[in-house]
Every structure is written in structure tokens, then in C-alpha cells.
């Protein structure tokens, strides 16, 4: 098994679950009982062109299907609200529809579903969604340049358009920072900051041309730590992971990849960074001694098959090196030592760090 890393290799347990379908997205689902572990998978069968959302229970080293649901089109983004008593699964499709599933908190069977049909929110695919902590608000963005807010009611979904750039700007990722604020990312490594209290456009934006190089990239995913709401973390092209501190807006902090003035941070990867998340597991040791301007440790997964933890000013730690792309991963919020990741070659890996 390809496990390279400094100090992590012997502390890592990996389970692999080959699937017979492509995994478009995956998330942990926090169940009511602490002993259960549920995983939500968005799968796609390219032979029959059929997609499905499946909830599996993970016990020891087996995945047991609990429930499944057939979306009308392929899933482009999948989010789960982390409230144990009322879990919510939100999924957007490439056709442009949005679906909210209500799984049972105990056995994860699907109780009901609410959806908005295609072409109501966006023209074309929805590229990124995010659920607020409470689960009642959902933001979705698309390459058509629209930003929509969806209010999840008990029996219906209401939505309103926050902004429409008419395709002049495309958004690829979204993340809530607070009940009123959220961040979005897009082409040219640009980030935007939005405030529901100040309608009419983004309140602030990171200039897309900060890299000053001949080629630019796309932000694939963003993350905002609940305790540091002024810092927006983004993963993009060419192994770039950067953080944007709203208090010092002009320059981003490069965690990995090539920064302004060719000051390259050591990058564990050279290709697209598909997913980034603040790694709560790594931080627990020395969080108290950290200043608020320091960026917390970040986990990233890339096209060239690297799952690594990067930290400002330190050597990156490679957690997993695969021969194929790692398309997405999710850190279990309840138990941050558990990481689930989806591999390009139709399989899932579950890592347990000790």
C-alpha cells in the first residue's frame, strides 16, 4: 500500500472499498448515536448513465447500504448539515436542480425530499452549494454567474437571487462564514465575499491576478473555519492552496503552490487541488498557542493522487499517495481522525489516524 509520510505512516489505517461506479462526491453524515458512522455517496454509473445518492453505514470494515435515492441528473455538489438531531443532505445536479433530503437521524433511511427543478435557480449546472450550520439556509452558485439563496422550510423550498453577473463571472464554490456572510470562488483564482445585509453585489473581492504569472487557475473549493470567520481558504489549480484574510485584503497567504513574486511555498502537488478543508485533527495539539493571523492546518487532495496536510511555513505532510486522482474527501467533524476520500478509479478509502 502506498503510504508515504513523515511520522504518519505507521499511525494510519486504511480501508479501501472498491465500488463499481464513479464517485462524484462523498460526505460523512453525523448520526444521532455516537457509535454509528454514516457516509453519503453520490455515485454515477457511466454505462447506464444513472446516478444515485446512497447512504451507507460503516461498521468495522464494511459498508452497508441503508438507503438510496435516484436524482434526475448527475450530482455536482453534495453537502450535509452537521446537526445530529436533524441531519440534512443537500445535493445539486449538473442539470441545475437542487435537492434536499431528510434522512432519519437514527437509521439514515430517507424520509422525505424537497427539490427545485432545473432552470429555476441556474441556467446549466450548479457548481457549488453550501448548507448553513443550522441547515435552514443554502447558498448555491453556478457558472452562469448567479448566486442564489435557498430557504429550507418544512414542506417547501423558497429561493431568492442574490446576484446575477449574466455569465461575466462564473462561480465554482461557495461556503458560509456566518448566518449573513458567505464566500465564493471562481475563475482566475478569485474569491468574493458576500453579505446578505449589503445586497447588490459582493462586498469585497480578492483580485484574480495576484499570482502575476502567465497562467492562472480556477478555485475548486473553499473552506472557512467556524472559529476564524475572517479567513477564507481556497484550493485551486497548479497545487495552489491559499488563504485570504479579510483584514489584509490585498495579498493572499500562500500555503502551497506559487505565490506572488515567485515565492513558492513547498507544494506537495503540482496539479488541481480538488478539495481543501481545515484539519481539526492536526490543530488540537497547539491551537492555544496560535495567533489569530496564523492559518490553521489544512488538508488537501489533488489530481495527482496526493492527500496531504499543509501548514503555514512548514513542510507538508503527505498522508496518502495514490496512483490515481483523489477527487474529494471529507473529515469527520465529530471524529476528526477519520477521513473518507474518493478515488478516481471507482473506489473509496477510509483513513483512520491514530
Amino acid at each position, binding site marked *: 500500500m502506498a503510504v508515504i509520510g513523515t511520522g504518519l505512516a505507521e499511525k494510519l489505517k486504511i480501508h479501501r472499498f472498491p465500488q463499481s461506479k*464513479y464517485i462524484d462526491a462523498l460526505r460523512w453524515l453525523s448520526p444521532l448515536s455516537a457509535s454509528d458512522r454514516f457516509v453519503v455517496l453520490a455515485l454515477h454509473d457511466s454505462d447506464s*448513465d444513472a446516478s444515485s445518492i446512497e447512504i451507507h453505514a460503516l461498521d468495522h470494515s464494511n459498508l452497508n447500504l441503508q438507503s438510496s435515492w435516484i436524482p434526475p441528473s448527475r450530482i455536482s455538489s453534495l453537502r450535509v448539515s452537521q446537526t445530529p438531531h436533524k441531519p440534512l443532505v443537500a445535493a445539486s445536479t449538473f442539470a441545475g436542480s437542487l435537492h434536499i433530503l431528510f434522512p432519519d437521524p437514527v437509521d439514515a433511511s430517507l424520509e422525505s425530499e424537497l427539490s427545485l427543478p432545473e432552470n429555476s435557480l441556474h441556467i446549466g449546472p450548479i457548481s457549488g452549494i453550501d448548507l448553513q450550520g443550522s441547515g435552514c439556509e443554502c447558498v448555491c452558485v453556478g457558472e452562469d454567474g448567479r448566486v442564489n439563496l435557498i430557504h429550507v422550510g418544512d414542506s417547501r423550498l423558497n429561493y431568492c437571487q442574490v446576484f446575477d453577473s449574466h455569465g*461575466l463571472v462564473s462561480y465554482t464554490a461557495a461556503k458560509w462564514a456566518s448566518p449573513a456572510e458567505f464566500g465564493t470562488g471562481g*475563475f482566475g483564482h478569485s474569491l468574493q465575499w458576500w453579505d446578505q445585509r449589503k445586497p447588490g453585489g459582493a462586498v469585497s*473581492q480578492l483580485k484574480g491576478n495576484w499570482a502575476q504569472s502567465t*497562467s*492562472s487557475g480556477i478555485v475548486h473549493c473553499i473552506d472557512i473555519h467556524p472559529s476564524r470567520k475572517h479567513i477564507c481558504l481556497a484550493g485551486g489549480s497548479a497545487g495552489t492552496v491559499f488563504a485570504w484574510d479579510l483584514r489584509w485584503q490585498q495579498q493572499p497567504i500562500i500555503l502551497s503552490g506559487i505565490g506572488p513574486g515567485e515565492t513558492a511555498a513547498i507544494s506537495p502537488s503540482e496539479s488541481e487541488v480538488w478539495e481543501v478543508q481545515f484539519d481539526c485533527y492536526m490543530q488540537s495539539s497547539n491551537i492555544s498557542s496560535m495567533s489569530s493571523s496564523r492559518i490553521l492546518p489544512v488538508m488537501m487532495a489533488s489530481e495527482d493522487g496526493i492527500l496531504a496536510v499543509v501548514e503555514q511555513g512548514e513542510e507538508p505532510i503527505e498522508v496518502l499517495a495514490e*496512483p490515481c486522482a483523489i477527487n474529494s474527501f471529507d473529515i469527520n467533524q465529530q471524529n476528526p481522525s477519520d477521513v473518507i476520500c474518493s478515488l478516481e478509479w*471507482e473506489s473509496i478509502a477510509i483513513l483512520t489516524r491514530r
Partner: protein
Amino acid sequence: MNLKSYINATKNLEEHSRQCYAETIILSSDEFVEMMLLDACFLVELFHSGDFSTKMPGRVSDSGNSLVPFSPEVPDPIIYPLHHGLTLPISRLSISWSRGNCLRVSFFPKPSPDPCREDSGNSNGEIGGKVVEVKLSSGDGEIDDAQERRIAYGSVSPFALLQSRKNSFSELSRMSMSSSSYHVDWWEHVMEYSRDIDSLLGNPKPPPSSAIEDPKTVLKTVEEPTCLKAAWELMEIFYVDKQSQAWLSERLVDWLADYDSLLSGTEVTVHSKLVDLQKELVDLQAIEDDPKYWEGISSALAVGWLEIAVKLLRLHGSYQLHQLGKRETENGLVETVAVLVSKMPRMRPELAAGRLGECFKTKPDFIKAWEKWRGNITKLDCSGYWIECDHRQTKEGLRKILQIMLGNTDILSNTTCHWMELYISHFLYIRPFTMGLEGMYSLAQKCMQLKLMSTPHKLMGLILGILGENTEVVLAECSRAFGPWMVAHAIELLTAGSNQAEILLHEERYNLGGISIEELHRLVYAQVLSSHALTWQIAPIYLMSCTKQGMGLLEILLYKQPVHHNKTLLKILEICRLYELNSLGSDIMKIAGIYHWKHGRKGAGVFWLQQAQDEARLNRIAQQLFDFVGKSICDESFKQWEGLIELLGSGVRSAGGLEFLHKYRDFKKSLQQVHDGKTIDAARQAVESLILLMRNPSTPQRFWLPLLHDSLKLLSWQERPLLSVSETNLLLNKLQELSMSRLRPDFCEADLPPQALSSVRLALATNLGRAILEIKGIKLGTVIILCKLESMLWFCWSLDFSLGVLGLRAVDGSCFALIELIIGLSIAAQLMRYYNHHHLGVHLQSEFTLRMDENNIITPEEETETALHHKGTLATSPIITFTFRSVEYQQYN
């Protein structure tokens, strides 16, 4: 298969076939079937004759050069009916490839000649046709698609590792020029590769074994083995594992033990016999009475499954405690035979735990042990105990077992089922000292004659190929029975140690278009991978190992991939980056850019075109974008533009004509500040960006007037002129250019008030005059007051109008600038005079002369003077006269 069955098959389809014709076929049933059959024969002949594809390897057309032997006997045709649910007749049928291994068959019904009838009667009238997807599978269904993909994924890493090792090896051997060390180590690398691949093919996980072993379970339940794994291991035994050459026959015994169950699919085998016996064992009381029991023991022993034979022997009734006393001799005989079986000498390095027999590593030791063992058997065979044994079945059974161990050909032949089993038993008991491949092939043929197969198993062809030492046959069998994956990967095994095979497979062949057999098979496999949405990404690894055609096919593969989703697009670009296909990468980015642009995602389109550094297309789409800007750009909608403009960057990256937008935004921003704060600095900045914009050749002409109109406030800045003389001249030139192009038919008018041009011109003229005055150090305060005079402006406007007409005549630009200058000056002079500032007027005159000198024009002093000192009256006519004159003067010059 005879003619009759063909006729029957066709006859069954007659009704259906007739309906496939649009017209009614006036033939009797027999005639119709005959026609169908003849046509079918013709088609089969056509396909086989090779006229269809002379370039395809393996067609019989070039029977001399064909690589893959082609057997002319056609296997039973299988006819699958397709249900389409349309009312007949079908007028047209179209077949095309769909996703993966799917065929898309489209049925078009015959259009109804009478549309009215269709509406009334035909219930299917609204259906214009039907598409049926037919999934083709490889047939046996042993390995499903998902499993096949898993094997494909898993074999990428071992293959890539082996290739890189091969490259470094060949480099090393080229350097040291000693190829001897190359072969010594090389097969070990291939062995590692082979083991990696082998582990993919079957489940290495042993099934959970229960703690208490059931004594009656003779056969261990194992994971269903696959033919693919069996074939792979067979090739590993013969081609790679050099250590196994000395004990090849023992390896074959092990191999058959693992995979005998596969052969039971088509024939009765020892394995299937034992499976049956196993079922009966539970119910049998005195098993030794049952002939099947003895048959099972001898069969298991004949193929060398000593453990099973011994285990079965120990189930003998005489072992039971209450019988032990009565059947002491019988039990003694059974036990002696069991011990003899378990002491059988084997020539092999080691035996796995729990396996019976005694290992001997060297031949002399083995021969010695073998003789002794045979001696013991003969001794037992001749012993007197047999007479004391009462149980007939036991006596016969045990003696048969002894005969097997003594190598009795007839008994061996009777106890084994498949020829492979007979073959193995020959190695075990008749010619235990066989080394290597000597005589193996002829023995196999002999065994096959003894045990005829009804339908040959696909592994058999491969075995014969290997034993016959015919690399071509082995390859052909791999390809026929196991498909492209097997061939592409097994070639590495074939070439592991054999120079001959290496030459054969690496030789470039004219009939393959100059590529080697190895490359051909890799290309074929890569093609298979490319056809699937999930496996195309690993095709490049195989294509890159093809030196001749690989790169070209890789480019085609990458071109063919859809770019709709950014994720797929980025994965394609990543492959381009890895293999340094920069121009291809930028082509794909261009495709993506245009795709996004066409779908209204302008930002994404611009981004990709910018990444591709495609100036031409950026310029082209810039024009469309400006139309959009012209309509939408106002202060409120600017938020929408912000992001795009940020994306365009500040000129480091190529933006084509789009960099205009960036400057335009800067200008708009500072103009906004001017309107809000009115600071002189902001105004200065706004003017700077205005000049930048106007200087820039990429600023579209249609924006000139709106730009100038927007900045009227700047042009007529109250405190002081913000534009210098040269700047004003530039703007005036542009304005003139604009007036000229207005006459062209394709000019599009900006959405501005009708007097916009004039007011801009006026403002510019005023500014020019003021600028000149400022140069000369004239206090501007006074002038500014004058500027306010409404009537004066109208006067100037009329003046300007006449000049506009003049300007059209003056082709030379500098001439026109001069006129503007004169006008500016004269206006100023007039203004001065109007307020009786005579000394200023004089001053202006000298300034005027100076300017004229600078422009190398000899000033007609008198005339100017006349014009300027026209007795202090305010009249328009002299000035006009003056200007006319000076223009005429220039033209005269």
C-alpha cells in the same frame, strides 16, 4: 453444425425477415429461405475473403503473412432477436456505437403515404421511430465490466513500473555493453510484475475457515477461480519463473489442482467427480462398499491430490473403533497405503504446510528416493496380506491405488477424465524424471487423442501453444480467449527471458504499418480503454509506451474528450501537462473557451482563451463583448463587470482587445470620484486614463465619442485646463477621424444626444485655447469667467461647424490641427478683445506667429494682423475670413 440447422434457423426468422422488407416479397417459403441463406453466405464470405479490410492483421486474405491464425470453421451462429415494439414494416435501420459497449440501433418505420389515415387508424402514428440500446458483452460473463475495470486500474502501476525499469535497464546495458547481467536480473523484475498482476486477478483473501474442521469435507471451498488467473499463472510458470524450470511438472500439478474446477464447466473432471462424491459422503454409512468412493480416491491420487486421497482413505469403515477388532488386517492395509501415498517423493523445493509428500531438491536424491518408494509399493503389492483381507471392494480399490502409483497406463487412463488430468498423471507416475519442456508437447498430443474433448476449453488452446513453444499461437490464443488486456500485459511475460520471442515481438513489421506486434497490441488495448468514460484516463500510460503511433493516438484521444465539465477538462489538461503536449493543451483550452462563450458563460470563455493565449479569438469576442458593454455599462451594472475585469488582469497576461475594458473601468472609476469629490487630483487621474484609453489602439472607435462625452466635465474644467496642448490635439485628431468614419456606411452611432459631437468639439477647442494660454503664463481666472458666457459658446459652435466642413477638405492631419489651433487662438483673442484686454491680444498674436513658425508655415503676417486687430469690434465675419484664408494659403502651399 450442418446446412439443415442453418435452414431451420433462417426458417424460424422467416416471418420476421419478410416484414423487414418494405415491399412484399413474392417468393414461396422455401425460396425465401434459400435467398436469405445465400445472401448470408455471401456476406460471411465477403467478411472472410479479406476484401473488406486488407490491412487488418489476421484476415485470411494474406494467409502467408497472417499473424493470428484464423480458423475458417465458423462457430454456431447465435441469433438474438431485438424487440422494438414498432408496427412493421421498418423502412430504415441505423446502427452506431453508443456509450461503452453499447450498440445503438435506431428503427425507422415506413412513413405512411396517407397522413389522414395515419391520424385516424394507426395508433403508433405519433412514434417517429425507436432507438434500442444493445449491450454487447464478452460472452462468458466470468468477469463483469466493473471487475474488468478494476483489473485495468490495478495493472496500471505494475505496468508503468516495469516500463520505467525496462528503460533504465536498457540504458544501463547500453552504457556497460554487457547484456549478460541484464537477463540475470530482468526476469526477477518481470516476476514481481507478474505477481502484482496475478494478485489483481483473483481474490487473495482466503475464505474464513471454521475452527473445527469437518472430517467429511474433502474438498476445500475456495473462491471460484477465473480462467484469466489460470491463464496468467500458466504463462508465469512457463515464461517468467526461471526457478520453476527444474520442476515444471510439479508446477503443472499444482496449477491443475487450483484450476481443475474450471475445466468442469465443459467436461467431467476429477474435481466434478469429487464434488459429487462430497455430496454423497454425508449420507453414506459404509462408504467402502460404494465403488464411487474408491473411484474418487484413485482419481484424486492420479492427479496428485495426495491430501484428498489420504483423507478419503482414513474415512474407511475399518477405522471405526467398533470395527477395528474385526477388520484389523484390512485396516492395516488401508493405513499402509495411506502412509505410502503420503510419503510419495516429489522433486520440488518446498511444499506448503499441510501438503503431503517428501521434497527432494536434486535429481539424484529424488531418483534414489523414488526407487525406494516404488520398491515399497511393489513389496506391498506382492505381500500375502491381501489374501487375508475379506472385503472385496477394499482389496480391489487398494490394489488399484497401488497400480496407479506404479504407473499403470490403463488404470491411469481410466481413473482420469480430462486429457489434462491424464497428462498430469503421466508426469507423476510414468515419467517422473522429465525435466523442462522436452517431449511435453508430443505427450500432450498423445493424451488428447486418448481423451477427446467435445468442446475445447479456452485454456486448452493456450496450453497447447505454450507446450508447442509457438509464441504466435500463444498470443493469438490470449487475444481470442481473454481479450486485449491479456495480450497487452502478457507480452511482458513472453519476452521475459526469451531472445527469440523478443525479436519476434519487437520487430517492426511492414504489414502492420511499421509497428511491432508488441506495439500493435498495446495500441489495441489503449483503444479499448479509450472507449470507456472511466478508463480513458489510463490509456495514455499504454500509448506512451508505444514509440511509433502512441503520441499521435494520444493526441486524437485527448481531442475527442468532451470539455463540457470543468473537471473533465482539467483532467485532460493535466494529461497534456504531464506529457508536455502544450500546443494540444492550448487547443483544448480554445475549444473550451469557445464552448463556454457560446453558452453565455463569458467570464469562463475569456478565462480559457486567455489561458490559451489566443489573441485572435479574444479580439474577436471582444467586439461582441463591447456590444454588450455599450448596452449595459452604466454605474449600477458595473458590479457585474468587476469580476470579469479582475479576471482580465492588468496586462501581464494577454487579454487581446479586452484590456480596453480594464482601462475603461479605471477611467469610469476615477470619473465617478470626480463626480463625487471633485478633487483636482482625481480629475487629473481621470484625464490620464482618458488619454491612455484614447491613445490605445485597441479602444474601439465606437467608444470614442461616448468617452469624450462622458468626460465633458473634465474637458471644461473650471479651475484650469486639465489637458495639455498635445493631449488636446490628440483628442481633436481622434474626433476628426471619427467625423470622417461617420460617413462610412458601417458606422454605428452611439446612443448620445445629437449635439454631443459639437459640444465635445467645443469643449476641446476651449481647452486648447486655455492650455495655450496657460503655457504662456496667462492668468486663467479671467478666461474662465469668459468661458461661462453662453452666447460666446454658441458663437464658437457656429464657427466650429464651418471648420468641421473645412476639416473634411483638409486631408492632411497636421493642417487640420493647425486650423484647430488657430481657432483656439482666435477664440481666445476674440475673448480678450471683447473684454478690452488689448495687451493680451497682442500677446496672442506673437504666440500665433510662433506656432505658425513651429509648423514651418510662413505666416502671412499682414493678414493675420488685419484679422486680429479688426478695430476691436466683435464680429464673426473677419475670423471666418481669416480661417478660410489661412486654409487656402496652406492648400496653395
